[in-house]
C-alpha cells in the first residue's frame, strides 16, 4: 500500500507512518546538505534566525545538477544522510518534522526522531532523473554562493520515498537486512 501525504507535516501524520511504508509526498520541501547545514547551525549558535521556518517542514538532503534549458531542475537524487547527523537536533528542536536522504542514521538520530516526533525518509539513491520528474517548481531560498549546496524550495508532486526510520524506533534497513542476511 502506498500512503499519500502533504507538507507541512503534523504530529498525527508523522505518527501514522511506519518504517517500510511507501509514501508519496506532495507540497514544498527544502534542499540542504553539508555546507548549508553547517551555516544554519552556526547561525543558530549566534542567535540568528534560519533562512526559512523549519516548523512542520521536510528537508531533502540533495544537491541537484544544473537544469538544462527549459527544465526547472536538473537530476536530483538524495545524498548520504548520516553526514548531516551532527546538525539534526537544533533543527528538530525548532519543529522540523521530516528529512529525506539515503542510507542509515546514527543511533542518536533514531532516538531524536522518537523524542521530537519526526521521521526520516529514504529515497532511492542515484535514480536522480526519475526523481527530477516529480519536482515541478524551484525557488532559491538562501546561500546562493554555495551553488548546488544552496537552500532551495521545491514543489514536489507524488515524490516517492520509503519510511526508513519512524517516530517509534522502527528501522527499515535493520529489519530488511536481518530478514535476508545469511551470515
Amino acid at each position, binding site marked *: 500500500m502506498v500512503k499519500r501525504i502533504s507538507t507541512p507535516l503534523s504530529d498525527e501524520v508523522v505518527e501514522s507512518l511506519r518504517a517500510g511504508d511507501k509514501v508519496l509526498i506532495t507540497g514544498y520541501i527544502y534542499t540542504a546538505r553539508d555546507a548549508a547545514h553547517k551555516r544554519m547551525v552556526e547561525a543558530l549558535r549566534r542567535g540568528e534566525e534560519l533562512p526559512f521556518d523549519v516548523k512542520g517542514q521536510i528537508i531533502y538532503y540533495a544537491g541537484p545538477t544544473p537544469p538544462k534549458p527549459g527544465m526547472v531542475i536538473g537530476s536530483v537524487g538524495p545524498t548520504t544522510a548520516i553526514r548531516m547527523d551532527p546538525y539534526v537536533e537544533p533543527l528538530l528542536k525548532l519543529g522540523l518534522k521530516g528529512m529525506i536522504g539515503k542510507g542509515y542514521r546514527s543511533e542518536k538520530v533514531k532516538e531524536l526522531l522518537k523524542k521530537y516526533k519526526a521521521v526520516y525518509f529514504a529515497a532511492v539513491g542515484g535514480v536522480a532523473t526519475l526523481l527530477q520528474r516529480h519536482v515541478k517548481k524551484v525557488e532559491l531560498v538562501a546561500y546562493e554562493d554555495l551553488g548546488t549546496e544552496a537552500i532551495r524550495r521545491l514543489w514536489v508532486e507524488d515524490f516517492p520515498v520509503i519510511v526508513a526510520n519512524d517516530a517509534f524506533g522502527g528501522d527499515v534497513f535493520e529489519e530488511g537486512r536481518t*530478514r535476508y542476511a545469511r551470515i
Partner: protein
Amino acid sequence: MREVPVSEIKKAVKELIIEANYKIPEDALRAYEEALKKEQSPLGKEVLQQIIENAKIAREQGLPYCQDTGIDVVFIFLGQDVRVTGGSIEEAVNEAVREATKEGYLRASVVWDPVFERKNTGDNTPAIIHYEVVPGDKIKIVVAPKGAGSENTSRLAMLKPADGWEGVKKFVVETVKQAGPNACPPFTVGVGIGGNFEYCAYLAKKALLRPVGQRHENPLIARVEEELLEEVNKVGWGPMGFGGLVTAVDVKVEMYPCHIASLPVAVNIQCHANRHAQREI
C-alpha cells in the same frame, strides 16, 4: 613515432565525461536486469525497477544518471610510440572537465582546500589522472566519474601474511557490510590484493574497469571473484539496503606480487551508477 595533438585528448575526454554521466554501460544495465529476476525482496525489486527506469530516462533525455556527477577519474594508457604535441596532457584533461561540466550540465562537486575553506572550484576541476605507459602507438582513455557516496565507504588494510585468504575475505565482506545502504547498492566491488599501500588501492579502482559479469582471465583470480561475490551477497543488504539477495552484482579482483612481510588489500566500492566510457585514439 606517431604524433597526436593534445587537442584530440581534450576532445575525447570531454565527450567521454558527458557520455559516462548520461549512459550507464550496457554490461551494468544487463546486470541490473538479471538482478531483478533474482531478487526476492519486494522493496529490492522496486529499487531495481527504479534503477533500470532511471537509466533509460538518462539515456533518452541526455540527463545525468545521478546528481552526483562525481569527481572525474581519467585513466590514460599512453602507447610508448606516441608523442603528444601542442601542450600539456594534464591541462588538456582539466580543460575537458571544465567544458564537459558546463556544456553537459553536470554538477561541480570538487572543493579546494579539502579541510579548511572547502570552497567549490566551480567547474569540477581538477580531475584525478592515472597514467600508464603501454606498448604500441595508441592512446586509450577511460573516464570513470566517481560519486562520494560509495567512494567514502572504500577501505584499505595492510593485513598480515598469516591472515591469508580468510583474512582477505573477512575484510572484503566487512567493508561491504559497513558500506551498506549509504553507498547505493547493488554494488560492483573492486578489490586489489598485493602490491603495496598505494598500488593495491590503484588495482582496486582499475579492477572496476573490466565489464560487469566478465571473469578474470587468470583462473585463480576468477575463482576468488566468484567466491567473494557469493560471500558479499550473504550480507543481506539488497538493493539500496532495504534487505535482499543482491547486494553486489559483481566483484572484480586484481592481484600483484607483494613483499614477503605484506598482504595489502583495498576495496573500492562502486555504487550502481557504474559510470565508465572509453575510447582509443
